[in-house]
């Protein structure tokens, strides 16, 4: 019999909240965070506001709280590594793990483009190819920096598949645990939005200047965001041996591609990913009580996603409850999958679905029910978290209550 994979810790760093507890309170309040980016000048862009982490706040939380570990973060570490390290420490702490006990763990990180290639590229253009930028440039530099700071000894991986990156990193971590390559895996993601990302999504006309209104008839696009999120995963038998208190069970994982288009999603890919995750979980679609959607707020994403869910769950609107927490958090790109997996676990443990306060006119074409006015109580046993990415990558995770 296969040993279950359980979640024993959560850690979050967003623009609005540092720590999983503060993050949950922010979600329940449903107050979107929208501000001028603290890391670059966005005045030249069509959309000028986002949910971008202030690195000084992360440094202020990291250094006093964890001085020895923060000191081990290599000097060349890219900024997102600090976000990731702080979220990882939050997750490890909530799992009841200390440095000796987390040392054998592995790490699986998802990132969009990762590293600090923009800094290196700029240095190249001015003939300043400084080693400090050079080491931070590759996409896996955040993984190397965090693994070094935590002195981890298990398998370390960095995955990049656009906005499914950290959902895929959770899948990879689950496989490493199933294969007994490690007893504990840190799985998640970290990203920092650069000005070029801002420019790119502006060029795609995918950004909403006035906030994310996923599944709203008047939705205009996404809100860019960055940060970090980590889950501590372990086999249930291992968690039991060390008397850890699991938060939820990672019941099923599934991935599939659209094989369709560079940017436009097709519902069949997500449908296949969800069906695979359900089969992996040994569940029927009717067992799912809540779905945390990718729900970026772009017309194309929400339509394709709603079509896939209607095909799987039916159109009667009876169940499951469906929402997108990007209306509050913004879109954390490669980190979104891990952040929303954390949301799924928090929904299971608290029995509440956070509200979507920006949605005022649910799109009648998208028939799924949404929690609008305030937090919505739900007695959920099984929840699903979906992620979609450029090029048609899809990942679906199913979590179960304990």
């Amino acid at each position, binding site marked *: 019999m296969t040993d279950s994979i359980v979640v024993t810790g959560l850690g979050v760093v967003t623009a609005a909240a540092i720590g999983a507890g503060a993050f949950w309170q922010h979600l329940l309040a449903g107050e979107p965070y929208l501000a001028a980016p603290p890391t670059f000048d966005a005045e*030249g862009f069509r959309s000028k506001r986002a949910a971008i982490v202030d690195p000084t706040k992360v440094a202020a939380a990291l250094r006093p709280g964890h001085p020895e570990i923060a000191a081990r973060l290599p000097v060349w570490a890219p900024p997102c590594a600090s976000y990731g390290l702080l979220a990882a420490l939050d997750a490890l702490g909530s799992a009841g793990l200390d440095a000796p006990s987390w040392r054998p763990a592995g*790490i699986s990180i998802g*990132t969009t*483009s*990762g590293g600090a*290639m923009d800094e*290196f*590229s*700029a240095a*190249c*253009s001015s003939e300043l*190819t*400084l080693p400090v930028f*050079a*080491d931070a*440039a*590759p*996409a*896996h530099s955040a993984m190397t920096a965090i*693994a*070094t700071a*935590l002195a*981890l*000894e*298990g*398998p*370390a*991986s*960095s*995955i*990049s*598949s*656009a906005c499914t990156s950290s959902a895929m990193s959770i*899948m*990879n971590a689950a*496989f490493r645990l*199933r*294969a007994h390559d490690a007893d504990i895996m840190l799985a998640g993601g970290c990203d920092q939005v650069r*000005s*070029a990302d801002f*420019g*790119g*999504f*502006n*060029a*795609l006309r995918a950004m909403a200047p006035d906030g994310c209104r996923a599944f709203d008839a008047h939705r205009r696009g996404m809100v860019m965001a960055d940060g970090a999120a980590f889950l501590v995963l372990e086999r249930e038998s291992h968690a039991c041996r060390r008397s850890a208190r699991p938060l939820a069970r990672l019941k099923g994982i599934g*991935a*599939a*591609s*659209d*094989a*369709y288009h*560079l940017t436009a999603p097709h519902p*069949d890919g997500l449908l*296949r990913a969800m069906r695979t995750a359900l*089969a992996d979980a040994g569940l029927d679609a009717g067992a799912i009580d809540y779905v945390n959607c990718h729900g970026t707020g772009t017309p194309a994403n929400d339509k394709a996603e709603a079509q896939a869910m209607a095909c799987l769950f039916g159109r009667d609107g009876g169940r499951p409850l469906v929402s997108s927490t990007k209306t509050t958090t913004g879109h954390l790109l490669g980190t979104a999958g891990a952040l929303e997996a954390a949301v799924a676990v928090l929904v299971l443990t608290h029995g509440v679905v956070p509200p979507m306060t920006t949605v005022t006119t649910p799109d009648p074409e998208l028939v799924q029910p949404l929690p609008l006015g305030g937090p919505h109580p739900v007695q959920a046993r099984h929840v699903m978290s979906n992620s979609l990415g*450029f*090029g*048609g*990558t899809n990942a679906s995770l199913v979590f179960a209550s304990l």
Partner: protein
Amino acid sequence: MSSHVVITGVAAITPRNAAETAPGRIEGIAAADAGQPASRSEHNRHTRLSRLTLAVVRACLSDAELRLEAGPDATVGLVGASSYGCVDTTDGIFRTMREKGPAAIDAVEFAKATHVFPLTATATELGIAGPVTAFVSSASASVEALAFARDLIQAGQCGAMLVVGFEEITEVVARNLAARGLLPLPSPVTPRIGEGMAAILLESAEAAAARGALARAELRTIAIRCLTAADPIDQIERTMHRALDGLELSTSSPASIILSGDVAAGVEREALRRVAARRPIGDVRTPPCWLGNQLGASMAVRLATLLDGGRVPSDARAPILLNAIDTRGNAAAVGILTAARGFEERAP
């Protein structure tokens, strides 16, 4: 759930045209570049890296005699491995942003600036609708991708997975390698860093047998351990032991070892000495210099080259362990059972 995963197809493209005749090999990168038509439509759909990835995947499918189903084929997936991925496209976006401002950013080019793009472009072109993702780390990237692909097959999520190593050495990559002290290399006998693509088709043994495909090798074991903070010799030793555990070694069937041949040679040799004190170890080799070092794609290129050159009878298999070491990443090892014995006959 299948417990056995086999390699039924390989293909590689390197600048050296490693061989011209064997079925799994295709023309070298220079020839592949020259042979690419560049219509406007194709320019929009591809980059140089995605065209090369598509070429090597097509060659691998042909080598394995695997025909994809008409329409989206969800029984096959793609997992990529690279160190630098698509940084050249990303760098182009950065340069445009710096030199011309945000209004000059091309939406299509921006959408290609993800490290998984060569794989999603290939999947779209060929209708591959199974899982698609990319591992971006250093020398162990291809090993991590092999493990993920194997696990997807063993979990029953798809019948076959293509593992694609891809590494493109462009100006910004070369400058980064130089700034990190990796170019020029410290020793003239160290394999030269270069670009290359390789594809390896993994299938469940049952699926391969059902379609009458012959296995080049059985992918038996994979081990990965982080080297960034721990004692590297100890970590490499533990990695090798774990990978050797599943190879059923005996004095009459010792493991052949193919060392990483990279910059950590002294550390790796010491770990091997410790391993050999407890395990039956046969011949020990390093990859030949002519094969080069394709960074994140190197293990894929090595496996594809080692296993190329004809079908292997399934009853004539010997254990081989291949190491991949990066002192700022992982120690990784792949254990296979195969009749392929070495790189010598594949020399250009």
